[in-house]
């Protein structure tokens, strides 16, 4: 058994799971179980949102340590599902590591970022339906969905340049708030508030908050606090972007 390859593979799987939106508890547990299934003598895993460390001891008594620095996280729940399935297979039938590595690579290459039209569609749906949901009119909902398309374009452009996430949140919120306020100024019978709420639902750090709470309650205090902090700062960034747009257009009527 090649312990180093095992460690490398299990950490890679863990890293990709964390990147696609898993909770810390699941990631640590998954690495531990894979190494356990392949008969490592001792396994020590520690992970927070930005870094992951594991040391395992081979049956011959030699120790190996590897670290992964986790850069940024998106959310891809299908990739997470498939990685989860792979790790279950590894635990239950322990196939050869070469086979496992090939499977892992095929999951990575088949899970691509969303195609542009689907990305636009999801923004369209979210903003349009939540504007109606929070009591907007049909016309407001249509404008909200249109503004969301512009927002989507901006998200794709800023995603390419690798912006600071907080700064880009401020700018994005500023953009859609400004557009919504301008819409409301130009068109009679359209109010900006429901349009803005519909678009806020897109940028609000819902998944971050949910995952941070789950981390906190399952005992991963450091990661939970990190994610909670991140969500709060992003919420503040939304408030800042909105305030900027309102102040620039001359305050609230």
């Amino acid at each position, binding site marked *: 058994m090649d312990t180093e390859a095992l460690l490398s593979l299990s950490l890679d799987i863990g890293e990709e799971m964390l990147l696609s939106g898993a909770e810390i508890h699941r990631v640590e547990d998954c690495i531990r179980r894979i190494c356990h299934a392949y008969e490592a003598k001792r396994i020590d895993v520690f992970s927070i949102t930005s870094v992951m460390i594991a040391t395992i001891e081979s049956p011959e008594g030699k120790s190996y340590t590897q670290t992964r620095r986790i850069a940024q996280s998106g959310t*891809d*729940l299908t990739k997470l599902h498939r990685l989860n399935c792979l790790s279950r297979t590894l635990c239950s039938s322990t196939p050869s590591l070469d086979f496992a590595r090939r499977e892992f690579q095929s999951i990575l290459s088949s899970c691509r970022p969303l195609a542009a039209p689907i990305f636009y569609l999801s923004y369209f749906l*979210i903003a349009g339906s939540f504007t109606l949901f929070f009591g907007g009119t049909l016309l407001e909902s249509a404008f909200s969905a249109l503004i969301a398309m512009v927002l989507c374009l901006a998200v794709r452009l800023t995603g390419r340049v690798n912006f600071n996430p907080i700064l880009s949140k401020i700018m994005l919120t500023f953009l859609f708030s400004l557009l919504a306020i301008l819409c409301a100024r130009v068109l009679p019978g359209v109010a900006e*508030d429901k349009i803005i709420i519909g678009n806020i*639902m897109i940028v609000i750090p*819902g998944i971050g908050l949910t995952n941070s709470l*789950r981390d906190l309650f399952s005992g991963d205090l450091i990661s939970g606090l990190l994610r909670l902090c991140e969500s709060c700062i992003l919420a503040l960034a939304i408030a800042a972007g909105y305030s900027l747009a309102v102040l620039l257009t001359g305050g609230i009527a």
Partner: protein
Amino acid sequence: MREAFFQIYLAFLGSLGFSILFHITSTRLFFASFGGAISWGVYLALNPLFSSEALRYFLATAVIALYAEIMAKIQKTPTTTYLVPSIIPLIPGSALYSTMNYALRGEWEAFSAEGLFTLQIALSLAGGILVVSSATSVYKSLLHHFMKKAVQKKKGKKTGRYSL
């Protein structure tokens, strides 16, 4: 009544948008979005029973967390897949917006009231998730404990293998 169904339908569409954004595919896409409809449906159904907003949000979250755990178990997938899109309609986006607005207007009393209300909802959501996820983990560890004992009774069986 019609109004309520329309809202539930919209909650479904909103959750569907998020499910697409989070790359959920196949049958999981429907059930994850359906969770959004359930969460808002439960919230509305509890409307005449409880006057406290926080309690309603708490119960709706608990129901949806249970739904997520059960669906995840059936489909052998992480709970996150169902929990995250389903909880979206309960997220206090509207309350957050009003809070920001009061701050901009300088109406600090209304700001603190609305801010505390937003915080209260967020804590209710947290509580709902907490109750269900701790109950599930207790259930899982009990199950694991008794399975281990049962296996140990039959001699010669190894208990090293876990199932995820």
